[in-house]
């Protein structure tokens, strides 16, 4: 039994959390391999944080089982807490401790003696080490949170919405750090509602919606299975472009109001083939636009809903 569970960093079997009539997490099962970055992608309220907090032993599941680093979340809470690192959503701590003191404080809580300078260097806070927590910007607080999540040199790190609310520059800084941890061989369990974050960082993505995992694969696998085909949009062309392109064996639509032609590309036909065919037939076209399919489309196709990140897109 131990071998069955401990070869995976996380193994979840039929995990369920109910609050009265509300089912926050609905009997989900999945595994996370050691050394991979696994992302839970879904809108706020999908059940991401509830799942993570059950794995962190902060909430008790209504039913189901889960093993973290081979340890049972129902029995070995203290052992799991000692071995895992956690960056909670919106990390916050004693306001009047400095960056350095904060790392030492949490090191003390794990009875470990972290390499404070090494951690400060890792999260690029060396020149802020004597600044009080309350004087740090949101991005720096989050970076300190990552350093704090590493004080016990964990094998597995839970990062709950690590870049939520950060500006693009700070967000890229956080991503860079997560990639660095991955290279060191850490297992990372990430939750996010930013599709770009999942697409860039994760080896595998689980899409969670209303407490259910609706799809799970690599970002590219998800896009090719559930995404739309890539689209080529030709501006300022005419109706004759449509039969010309369809001769290549792919679909094209003409939009009468805009005068645009939308071409549905597939694996066998490249953009250059379309352009060559048009120019040899003497059909004019102006501007070109290529629309790549993304996890956003995957999410839309799977759930019929958008991820709702318009207000803070990159």
């Amino acid at each position: 039994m131990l071998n069955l569970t401990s070869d995976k960093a996380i193994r979840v079997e039929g995990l369920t959390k109910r609050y009265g009539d509300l089912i926050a997490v609905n009997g989900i099962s999945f595994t996370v391999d050691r050394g991979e970055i696994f992302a839970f992608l879904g809108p706020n309220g999908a059940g991401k944080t509830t799942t993570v907090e059950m794995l962190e032993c902060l909430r008790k599941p209504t039913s189901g089982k889960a093993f973290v680093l081979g340890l049972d979340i129902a029995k070995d809470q203290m052992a799991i807490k000692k071995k895992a690192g956690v960056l909670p959503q919106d990390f916050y701590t004693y306001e009047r401790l400095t960056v350095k003191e904060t790392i030492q404080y949490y090191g003390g809580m794990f009875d470990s003696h972290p390499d404070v300078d090494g951690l400060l260097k890792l999260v690029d806070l060396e020149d802020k080490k004597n600044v009080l927590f309350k004087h740090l910007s949101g991005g720096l607080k989050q970076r300190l949170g990552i350093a704090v999540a590493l004080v016990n040199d964990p094998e597995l790190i839970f990062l709950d919405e690590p870049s939520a609310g950060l500006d693009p520059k700070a967000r890229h800084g956080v991503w860079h750090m997560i990639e660095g941890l991955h290279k060191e061989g850490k297992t990372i369990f990430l939750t996010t509602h930013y599709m770009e974050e999942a697409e860039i960082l994760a080896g595998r993505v689980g899409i969670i919606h209303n407490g259910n995992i609706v799809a799970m694969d690599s970002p590219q696998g998800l896009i090719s299975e559930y995404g739309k085909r890539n689209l080529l949009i030709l501006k300022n062309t005419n109706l004759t472009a449509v039969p010309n392109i369809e001769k290549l064996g792919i679909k094209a639509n003409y939009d009468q109001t805009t005068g645009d032609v939308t071409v549905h590309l597939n694996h066998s036909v490249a953009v250059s083939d379309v352009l060559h065919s048009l120019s040899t037939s003497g059909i004019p076209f102006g501007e070109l636009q290529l629309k790549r399919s993304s996890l956003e489309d995957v999410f839309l196709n799977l759930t019929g809903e958008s991820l709702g990140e318009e207000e803070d897109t990159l």
Partner: protein
Amino acid sequence: MSHVVIDLKASVKSFARNKSTIFWTIAFPSVLILLFGAIFSYSSVKYDLYLQNQDLVDGKPTYWSSSLVDVLNSSGVFNLQTLNSTINATDYAISNRLSSLLIIPSGFNDSANMALLTHTQSLENVTFVYDQSTSSAPIVGSIVKSIIGSINFQLSRGVNYLNVQDLMIAPKRYGYIDFFLPGMIGVTAMTTSIFTSVSISAQFKQNGVFHKLATTPLKRYEWILSRTVYNVLITFLGMAVMIVLGVAVFGMKMTIDAISLFMVTMASLMFTGLGMIIARFVKDPDGADAAANVITFPMMFLSGTFFPLSQMPLFLQSIARVLPLTYVSDGLRASMIFGQAQTAVFNTGIVSVLGFVCIVIGSWITKWEED
């Protein structure tokens, strides 16, 4: 245990870096001690009495009128304020809302001499003008009358057949400050412990510090133990400031013994637990302050901090008997001021039992995370 020490260090550092918290921890008890000490300790009771002497010869008071003024003065009961002899004193008293005024009429000296010679009543009498709506006027009136009565008694060569003997029952003379300061130490233990517990819990719940702490091996009871020790330390700081002021400014004499230190520790424990219990039911920091006020304010006024319980109506006294602060104040007074060991131990015992009950319930119901 090391977790407790680490968290305690963090709390003490945070305190030392928070200027406004330091200020209030020291200023609140200091201001109250100085203010109440000054109001009640220095004003030995004296009543204002206005006086108009119309019985003058060549601008100088006559023998009998000046003798009466001297006797009134030497009684030590009155602040005598002399009015000009030419004004209409009664009108002056009305327009200036004076509560007590004594008018010695012109011819008072001659009339008194005549009365003595003839053994009849004097024709010219002093007039006591007073505002019956004030509480002091009847007292002033009866003191003036008893002074004149004793003058009459001496002039008629009477004999003191009956006498009153004084016997002071308190071993030392205690002032208001002796009563007030131990009560104020109790209040400081209460406000420090309840307010910090409630507001820290509400803040940590809201801004997510509890959430992070819950992911570490730190146990809840370790954190609560650290907060309790912190509250004890802060209360001791406030207590030290008050004792220094009491001794330096008011010349108090008091005993700081093991029982009084133990009482303060147990009081902090009890109020920390009470704070944790309140914190369980508040959602945000604003609500936390309001809830803490609702508990601490009535206790401050009903537990015999500012005035003795015996001066309160009976039904309030019975309320005071169920308020824990009453036992803290009584116990501290007994140990620090009156040297009543038995009373001190009794009250400390009650507070210790309540303290352990509160801290156990508080620890038990405190949650870092909503399950």
